[in-house]
């Protein structure tokens, strides 16, 4: 289990290869990469701010919850901060398990919870100026869905 917050870019292939080396007996590795989306060619870049200390703590708690809920052999959360350009990589989540369902659900759970509980803030830089990205209600709903699923079964 590893959490990294860094300014520099990452190579998903290198991280996946390292996890394969570390984890013997995995049957499935799921990776998620989040990218700076530029839907209308409007976004020139982005600045990612975070709360040092709390970020690592919050992500560590999310990984613990994931491990308690699924058969998780290893996981990595790597989140970039600072200045990013359109189409840059923002976040990498890896989850290794014996079973594909556990790997998929772990990675998805980590991302949904990161989106609502990890202290990162995006400021978009557009042609018209800068603006803080607004939190989406759909992210809150995605996090709450896991809570409901747990209560129901």
């Amino acid at each position, binding site marked *: 289990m590893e959490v990294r917050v860094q300014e520099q870019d990452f190579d998903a292939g290198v991280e996946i290869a390292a996890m394969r080396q570390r984890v013997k007996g995995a049957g499935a590795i799921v990776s998620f990469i989040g990218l700076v989306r530029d839907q209308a060619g409007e976004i020139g870049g982005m600045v990612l*701010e975070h*709360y040092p200390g709390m970020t690592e703590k919050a992500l560590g708690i999310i990984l613990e919850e994931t491990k308690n809920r699924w058969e998780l052999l290893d996981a990595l959360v790597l989140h970039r901060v600072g200045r990013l350009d359109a189409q840059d990589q923002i976040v990498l989540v890896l989850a290794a398990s014996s079973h594909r369902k556990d790997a998929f659900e772990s990675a998805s759970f980590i991302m949904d919870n990161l989106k609502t509980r990890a202290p990162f*803030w995006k400021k978009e830089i557009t042609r018209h100026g800068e603006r803080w990205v607004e*939190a989406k209600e759909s992210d809150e709903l995605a996090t709450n869905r896991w809570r409901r699923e747990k209560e129901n079964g």
Partner: protein
Amino acid sequence: MKILYFARLREVFGESEQLSGMPDAASLVAHLRARGGKWEEALSGPFRIAVNQELAGMDARLAEDDEVALFPPVTGG
């Protein structure tokens, strides 16, 4: 106690300040809002509170050596 601000709130309030005598998060927020102007305005939208780097509710008790942070809903990932 140390109060930290992030993102939009940091731009309006500055990075941090020292305060004392706030028994809980609700009192702290009331105190900040009572400053009026940009304080009242910035805290009228949605925001979150963390106490000692964990998300907390308005009823969270505060101690003098706590680190309290106020920030907008998070938008990473």
